[in-house]
């Protein structure tokens, strides 16, 4: 099944409100993120935290080739979950969940940044276009 999970701040005045804007228009928003879930898993539980990511090559062990280098738990903790299930069978997503989040940062010493693994490249990276994938592969520098 397909599920769109929309994460929203439960308080539009929570810290950082000045920079929570929709681009390119700049309108203020309480949207924090969205997940496209095809795992058939459960909806997010109260207490689930959104992850946050950063790009910091200087602190990375691997070459991430412009991808994110680190992740940790974000300050946003799910406090309430509303679920809306499609009723026609024609919806783009079977299920839409709105997860309201409270701003509850963890102490820095309990929430270190952890380096992520470098990204994978496959034919699916090119939408299944095997020729494009092979062309990309042929341009990669092989290091020994």
């Amino acid at each position: 099944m397909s599920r769109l999970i929309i994460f929203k701040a439960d308080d539009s005045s929570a810290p950082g409100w000045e920079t929570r804007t929709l681009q390119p228009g700049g309108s203020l928003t309480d949207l924090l993120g969205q997940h496209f879930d095809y795992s058939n898993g459960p909806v997010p539980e109260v207490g689930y935290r959104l992850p946050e990511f950063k790009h910091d090559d200087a602190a990375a062990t691997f070459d991430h080739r412009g991808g994110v280098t680190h992740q940790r738990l974000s300050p946003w903790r799910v406090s309430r979950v509303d679920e809306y299930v499609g009723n026609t069978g024609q919806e783009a997503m079977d299920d839409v969940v709105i997860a309201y989040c409270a701003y509850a940062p963890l102490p820095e010493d309990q929430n270190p940044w952890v380096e992520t693994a470098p990204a994978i490249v496959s034919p699916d990276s090119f939408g299944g276009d095997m020729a494009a994938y092979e062309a990309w592969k042929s341009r990669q520098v092989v290091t020994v």
Partner: protein
Amino acid sequence: MTQSSDRSTTSHFAINEDCCRKMAAKYGWTLLEARRRIAARDPLVVECIFKGDAQFPKSPMDFSGGNDQ
């Protein structure tokens, strides 16, 4: 273990965000974020970040330790 302690993610580069969503639907993954790849020197300008260990049943090719410069 609760969901709040599940930190693991897997990244895949892609040519656009649509490819991220297609991968999620094809393999039953959860797409957490699609981000613009910084200073991409090839068509793979988007990074798809999936929840957990989003590996293929049989990995076609993994350039995770490679260098595309």
